[in-house]
């Protein structure tokens, strides 16, 4: 391995190591949470709810839950990791190394991305044992989930850099991300909503992400797949470019 490869791999390894050391909190808790949702919304309520778009309710909600798990874990891992290291001053060790802004941004991004990936894969595997979960369009599903994970990894990096206290991360998650994800239609089809909420949902970017993932698993969608994929890719690229700018200028990282 070249010096650059060793450096990047080490930066990334550090991020993975951080969440693996506290895996009860970083992997165990989100898994439990996802299964509580599946039990309550799927198994308990699901028996009272008719099929949605021709799909059993419990199966209908699982793709959205897998996506939500990946998104929230990507976000909260990166936001916490960066803030924590800023708080301890430990981030100076990476910042005073020869690592480039791009290497730093990618390594921080991929930490949360991997945690989301692990939780999503475990959720998928366990769900597959419990119910018959189809995978209809894997070529849409894989890029869609990767883009969602990477998008929220970028949001996490952005909030982590901007945050000055742990409250700032909690506020972003509780008051912005969770409502957007819930109202994007994880637990229902937007068709069921009365106006103006049905139209408003179309302004929620998470709505398109859920549709992509649901299409990938179940072959049902309310939005254009091509449009959703392109918009998500564009938004992810824009956010990545914005974060890279922050790393290049040293915003809130280098005095």
């Amino acid at each position: 391995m070249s010096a650059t490869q060793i450096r990047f791999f080490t930066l990334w390894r550090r991020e993975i190591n951080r969440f693996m050391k506290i895996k009860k909190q970083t992997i165990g808790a989100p898994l439990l949470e996802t299964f509580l949702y599946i039990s309550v919304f799927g198994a308990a309520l699901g028996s009272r709810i008719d099929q949605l778009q021709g799909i059993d309710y419990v199966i209908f909600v699982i793709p959205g839950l897998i996506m939500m798990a990946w998104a929230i874990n990507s976000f909260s891992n990166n936001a916490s990791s960066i803030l924590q290291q800023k708080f301890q001053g430990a981030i100076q060790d990476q910042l005073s190394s020869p690592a480039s802004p791009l290497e730093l941004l990618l390594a921080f991004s991929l930490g949360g991305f991997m945690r989301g990936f692990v939780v999503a894969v475990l959720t998928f595997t366990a769900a597959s044992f419990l119910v018959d979960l189809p995978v209809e369009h894997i070529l849409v599903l894989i890029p869609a989930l990767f883009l969602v994970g990477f998008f929220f990894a970028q949001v996490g990096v952005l909030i982590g850099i901007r945050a000055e206290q742990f409250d700032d991360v909690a506020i972003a998650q509780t008051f912005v991300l969770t409502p957007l994800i819930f109202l994007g239609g994880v637990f229902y089809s937007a068709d069921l909503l009365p106006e103006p909420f049905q139209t408003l949902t179309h302004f929620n970017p998470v709505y398109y992400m859920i549709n992509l993932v649901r299409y990938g698993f179940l072959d049902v969608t309310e939005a254009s797949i091509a449009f959703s994929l392109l918009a998500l890719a564009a938004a992810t690229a824009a956010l990545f470019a914005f974060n890279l700018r922050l790393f290049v200028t040293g915003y809130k990282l280098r005095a």
Partner: protein
Amino acid sequence: MSAHSDNGSGLPAPANALQIENLIKRYPTGVEALRGVSVDIEPGEFFGLLGPNGAGKSTLIHCATGLAQPTAGSIQVFGHDAIDNYGEARQAVGLAPQELNLDWFLTVAETLDYHAGYFGMPKRERRERAAELIETFSLGDKRDERTRTLSGGMKRRLILARALMHRPRLLILDEPTAGVDIELRLELWQYVQRINAEGTTILLTTHYLEEAEQLCDKIAFITDGQIAAQGSTAELAGNYGVANLEDAYLALVGRNELSRSRVEEVVT
């Protein structure tokens, strides 16, 4: 890119270990921490940077290591521009900061291993180097402990070991002996004198004048973001027309009345 030296490149004269010219650092708040600082540190030199709290010592160090961004001026580390060619410049520097900025999640061994990884050191070399420094700094018993559980002195040892992991040619020690016990201070002095003799350039900031006097070949006084004087201990004392470094320092900060030689005169 080679992680190591660029020896044998046939350069006419060896570049200075650290060459700072007209460095200005203005923070967004408007505070001007450095107001046109110029410092040259030759390869192999043991250089002391002394000055009162808030004089700009740490800001200067942060500018040289990429932790702060200079407003104007230039910084070269062994001929590499610290901004345009930061990779090469930072590769050459080991920083032991004043704050105990360790990652609580990592163990002692991981702290050393990751640091060297950030500097591109291969695994086998990292293992060997970490074992060597763990031994040198008596961290063996704590090897697999998380850094959060270490005592202040142990944290200080680890920060020094970490700075040395990638075999820097310029070692920057920002108040390394603040709050450490006598044994560690003496151990540290011995160690840095040894690696200095072996060729490592050292930049030390300290409030202990006897430390600077004993260790440093050359000393610069910094106050209010400017270099007030620099030279050997004798030159500085001569500059201020006093007998020793402490009195020169007191003259610098305008507190001659605190001079111990003067107190002795008054008492006798």
